[in-house]
């Protein structure tokens, strides 16, 4: 009996030693949710938006695809996914009610999605009944720090957004949202 219990303990220790959950320092959905809330707040507090009311002339704002200058590989689908997520977020959508600002996805989305089901829907009269007044460009950057021996990695992401008035070509809003993701464990193995 003693032999069995010793063996069981040894096997348990072997299998449990160093046990930990795999982690990643990639951007997560939660980061985008937080970012859109912060973005909506930043827009509301900006000079351009504080002057606006439900009676203002509507603005139609088109999102450009993310320019990815971070170390992350974000596929075109993921880049458009970020745009769709930001545009579809409740804090952003609510800007229509009290500020008369609507956010739309640009035609480039339809071009990139050609041949897919989304494109079939999007191509038909895509954006034909709207007059875009502003555009939002976004650039993602990141800085990476790795622990000694390649153990542990931290990525700091900075997502910069700029809204441009297409009539005057002047920026009306600019802000950067940062978040940090840390993962333990070897970056290679």
């Amino acid at each position: 009996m003693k032999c069995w219990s010793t063996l069981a303990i040894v096997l348990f220790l072997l299998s449990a030693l160093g046990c930990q959950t795999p982690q990643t320092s990639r951007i997560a959905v939660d980061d985008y949710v937080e970012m859109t809330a912060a973005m909506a707040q930043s827009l509301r507090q900006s000079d351009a938006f504080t002057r606006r009311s439900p009676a203002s002339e509507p603005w139609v704002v088109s999102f450009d695809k993310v320019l990815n200058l971070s170390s992350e590989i974000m596929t075109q689908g993921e880049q458009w996914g970020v745009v769709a997520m930001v545009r579809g977020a409740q804090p952003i959508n609510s800007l229509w009610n009290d500020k008369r600002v609507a956010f739309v996805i640009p035609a480039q989305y339809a071009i990139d999605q050609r041949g897919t089901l989304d494109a079939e829907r999007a191509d038909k009269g895509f954006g034909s009944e709207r007059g875009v007044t502003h555009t939002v460009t976004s650039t993602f950057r990141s800085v990476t720090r790795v622990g000694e021996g390649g153990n542990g990695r931290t990525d700091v992401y900075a997502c910069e957004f700029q809204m441009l008035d297409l009539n005057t070509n002047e920026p009306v809003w600019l802000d950067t949202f940062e978040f940090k993701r840390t993962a333990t464990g070897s970056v290679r193995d």
Partner: protein
Amino acid sequence: MSDQRSTQRGPINRGLSFFVALTAALAVLFGVGCKSDMRPSPHGKMRVGDFAGARDMVEAQVEDDLSERRYMLDRMRAGVLNLDAGDPVRAERWFADVYDVLRTQGLNEDKTVRSVVFTEGVKVWKGEPFEQAMALVYYGFVQASQGSWDNARAAAGNALFYLRDFEPEEGGKPERRIDTEEIARRAAAYEAKQRGEEPEYADGDEYLDNGYVAEENNFTMAYLLHAISSQQLGRDAEASDYFNRVVKLSPQHRPLVKRLRAGEYNTIVVVADGLGPRKIATGPGGALSRYQPIDTTRTPARVSVVGQAPTEMPAITNLNAMALDHRWNNLEDVRVAKNVLGNVLIAGGAIVIAQGIEDESFEAAAIGAGIAALGLLFKGTAKANTDYCDVFPHRLFVAALNITEPNTDVSIDLPDVWPPSSATLRSLNPPLTNQAAFHYLRVPTDRGLDPAVIEPTNEPVTQPIPEGNLP
């Protein structure tokens, strides 16, 4: 007396029997795990240019469970072969999974002890550093093929990152290597200067170059992809730093870099040929692993555009050399020690068994058998695991072309080799945007005098969305 002996021997015998059975079971269980998973090889199809056939074969073998050892390896193979077969969109799906696994840390963290005690086969395969870097450069090719130069830049940066030596210098001091925060600071200072603002230089920084190149290794292809991608994004200072690095690593590519710097191109063609080295177990008890070249051709490729003089392309990546430079050997000492210990235990066990037989002692014989079985277990699990990505090419070449006429054919030849290898990239068009087009093709090596003809599948969309719908 006899009853006394039998009562004493009973528990001992049971314990010994258990020990022998357990050791033998472990030997069988983990002994089989040390061999690599042998699957039908796609090499035959690849040699004759049937990349779609090779892709189908490999895709049918893909493991879907992330905890399976071959999860990432299967996807890496499928991604490479999809690009070989001219389908970057399908390749992207596989490489996205590969990237996801590479960016997941601690996947094998809880398996380190078991991999030392038992076999490396318990770990999820993440490949050698050079395989990780190659996979990321291939992901970059996939992105560039689809016009995503920003992602190609990120992929090239990742490839360089995974070849980085994270160990501190001898003496315990951290490496004297500028980190990415420093790079970002210098880059910000440079960009501020470009905007006419006063940059915040530290003392002496103004004499340095732009400071974009963070990772230092010899993976020229990744540096070049980074340089071209940066240039396509209008980041000329960054591109310049990476071009400098390419010339420093490979002076024979100076003419190519000169052409690229001058922007005298609108199409990048990456050519792959041959098969990369195979991983074999070698040394005592197969405890060591090494990469054995399959193809060894060293002649440059020749690229010809109709109406333009042929250009010689020296190889920018040779996987045979890369495999020697960037691979793990962290478990080799353990495996060698296990092999030696296994030999000692087997020999010792045999002696004890012989002694037991001579003395007519069941206990001694059983102990000897247990020791020998333990020795077999150690030897069986000492063999190096030889799983490797068997679809990477032997070499990569890069050509910068200026395609000015629609339906231009580009031919690639590998002269002075037998059988002669050639391929034609048919009906290339000038790019519709101000960004360069990217094409990848793999030259089959066993087609004899019958050149492969490849139709590009990533031609730009020729029917834009009606202007009326654009913002």
